[in-house]
């Protein structure tokens, strides 16, 4: 069978706090890394296939997402980008999409009110509604058959929901894509959580994005080849300047992973 020519996506993620890109380990001890707009342009020009922005304190501070920032990004970036954090309603989704984002990411809101997925998909189209999920490994196999429980609010709250069941339910409700962000691997730079990503990616028919733990180009190759992820989110490894998108893609290409090579 001929391989589809669709390329695997390399997606820098910009966690934004007070208009600064920040990065922590397992959702804690965040340090500021730079200006989100400047970094967005640099990644877009440098070969990123998409960008993701999370307004990471909007939810905790109970304020709406920073729409002005979304508008500024839309003006300078000519590749698709997703926005999440502090999405509390269909109105919030609409404002983000109207500001120029291709996709809006829901996480805690979808856990509290799963029907918001169906409503968002009906109004805006499945393709622009992304489910972010933060699963954590658990031992209790009777309650959590997949071995992973969904957490929300940056690992602060457990939900009692099984990760795979939630992924399948979200698919049935009409979600367009699932970002699987491993709480255990987040910020460690020790590799994506292959078993978890593979479990979700091979059990749903929609694209799955691996997130959390990417530290070297080999980690991306592993998650694309072994876990069948459709895209990989990276942060620290490029934010620190340790790797460029071009260098990562060169390695992926050498390993036989289809990537976009011209930009």
């Amino acid at each position: 069978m001929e391989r589809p020519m669709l390329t695997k996506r390399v997606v820098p993620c910009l966690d934004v706090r007070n208009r600064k890109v920040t990065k922590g380990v397992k959702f804690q001890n965040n340090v500021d890394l730079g200006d989100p707009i400047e970094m967005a342009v640099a990644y877009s020009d440098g070969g990123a296939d998409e960008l993701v922005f999370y307004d990471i304190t909007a939810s905790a501070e109970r304020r709406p997402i920073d729409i002005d920032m979304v508008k500024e990004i839309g003006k300078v970036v000519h590749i698709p980008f997703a926005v999440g954090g502090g999405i509390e309603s269909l109105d919030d989704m609409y404002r983000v999409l109207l500001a120029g984002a291709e996709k809006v990411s829901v996480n805690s809101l979808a856990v509290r009110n799963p029907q918001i997925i169906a409503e968002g998909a009906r109004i805006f189209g499945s393709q622009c509604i992304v489910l972010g999920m933060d699963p954590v490994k658990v031992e209790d196999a009777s309650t959590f058959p997949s071995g992973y429980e969904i957490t929300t609010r940056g690992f602060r709250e457990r939900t009692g929901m099984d990760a795979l069941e939630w992924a399948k339910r979200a698919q049935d409700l009409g979600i367009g894509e699932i970002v699987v962000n491993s709480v255990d691997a987040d910020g460690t730079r020790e590799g994506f959580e292959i078993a978890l990503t593979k479990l979700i990616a091979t059990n749903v028919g929609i694209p799955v994005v691996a997130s959390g733990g990417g530290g070297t180009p080999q980690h991306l190759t592993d998650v694309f080849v072994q876990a069948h992820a459709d895209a990989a989110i990276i942060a620290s490894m490029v934010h620190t300047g340790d790797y460029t998108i071009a260098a990562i893609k060169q390695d992926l290409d050498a390993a036989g992973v289809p990537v976009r090579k011209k930009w």
Partner: protein
Amino acid sequence: MIAIVDYKAGNLTSVKLALEHLGVGCEITREPAVIRGADRIIFPGDGAAASAMEHLRELELVEPLRDVVAKGTPTLGICLGTQVIMDWSDENGGVACMGLLPGTVKRFEASGPFCKIPQMGWNTMRFARKHPLFNGIEDDSEFYFIHSYYPVPATGELVMGETQYADATFASAVGKGNLFATQFHPERSGRVGMRFVENFTKWNGQC
């Protein structure tokens, strides 16, 4: 002035931002008179065919669009906009569409266990023929796609570019005369896509 047709089907802002970046005047509109008077038309869209056709009828935009295409106004369809200009879409159990270009719209079938639908991401387009909108763009360049359905034009001469995904080698660009339409999103396809949009802003509608 370029009219960006607003029929409640999303992705209007990214098109507007791309045109503003190029310094080209544009207006997001659902007014038939504005559409009829525009120098060029962009007909975008995301979402589903049935509600798109419902909105187009409700807003009484089908006839103005038919008229501007007939009188030679350069017109660019994007994504769902490309699907609803065909005769018929299989989406939502089957929907009669605008019939500005003969053909139908079909759904991808997964070609293997890890083949995901929708197609979401960057894929190459191979030119089926030369076209002014391809000026300065290399053959097999990559564009951004996000879709589960694809156009199947009635005849091969309507195919402008082809892309391979899932079970199909499909027409990722279609056109006839002053009407051109892409399944991909040029406004979000980086530098190559911006060149395509720029070509459209200068196109006189001749091939």
